[in-house]
């Protein structure tokens, strides 16, 4: 099963909408509740990263009997140093974004904690792809 959701860069009033849709689908499919809770944290953080940093993005959800794989691809500035971006507390968010309570440098660490496998590929001035996989067993 595969679902796709658009993510609008810069539009904070819609941040979380795609994650919310995925959550609804997973609930309808009777995916284990504790698993949904983990996945949702990772989804939301990845979605907010697109909203806060990129111009536009897409969330692709692939669901099989063994795993859920979510790929978030954006067109945006990219991440020059992924290991630095993974460090808790490191953020390049703007002051306005920080004032809203985002940009604490917890997004990527939160994603890592809440999925089983995380792959990030990024090209500066082109965009970033974040692929997270969570296994059902």
């Amino acid at each position, binding site marked *: 099963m595969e679902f796709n959701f658009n993510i609008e860069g810069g539009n*904070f009033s819609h941040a*979380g909408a795609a994650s919310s849709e995925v959550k609804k689908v997973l609930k309808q499919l009777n995916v284990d509740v504790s698993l949904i809770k983990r996945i949702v944290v990772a989804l*939301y*953080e990845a979605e907010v990263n697109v909203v806060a940093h990129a111009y536009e993005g897409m969330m692709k959800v692939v669901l099989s009997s063994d795993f859920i794989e979510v790929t978030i691809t954006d067109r945006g500035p990219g991440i020059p140093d992924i290991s630095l971006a993974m460090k808790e507390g490191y953020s390049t968010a703007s002051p306005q974004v920080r004032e*809203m309570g985002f940009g604490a440098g917890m*997004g990527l660490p939160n994603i890592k904690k809440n999925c089983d496998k995380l792959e990030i590929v990024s090209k500066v001035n082109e965009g970033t792809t974040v692929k997270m996989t969570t296994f059902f067993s």
Partner: protein
Amino acid sequence: MNVKELTDKLELTICSGEQGLTHEIKGGYISDLLSDVMGNAKEGQVWITLQTHKNIMAIASLKEVAAIILVKSRKPEQDTAEVSNDEQIPILSTPLDTFEIAGRLYKLIGD
């Protein structure tokens, strides 16, 4: 204890989401950093914050918190209140600051 009983005991103002007043409260969480709440708050907790913009409702809904308490007489923005009504997650307001309301909440439901 449910949200309505908490509202009465702590003299909170109900700003929105009245249909969620029957939610049972399982604890509390305090943070103004949204990723911190996203990563650490648990279902059924009351979330105390000073943030009033719409994104708090995305978090509250995804985490299924019981209610949000805004401190220092803050009120939700219009679009925040609308989502609170749609999602049936109450937003409550107190004139107290975070320290004072947290202490009172802890006395009521902490161990």
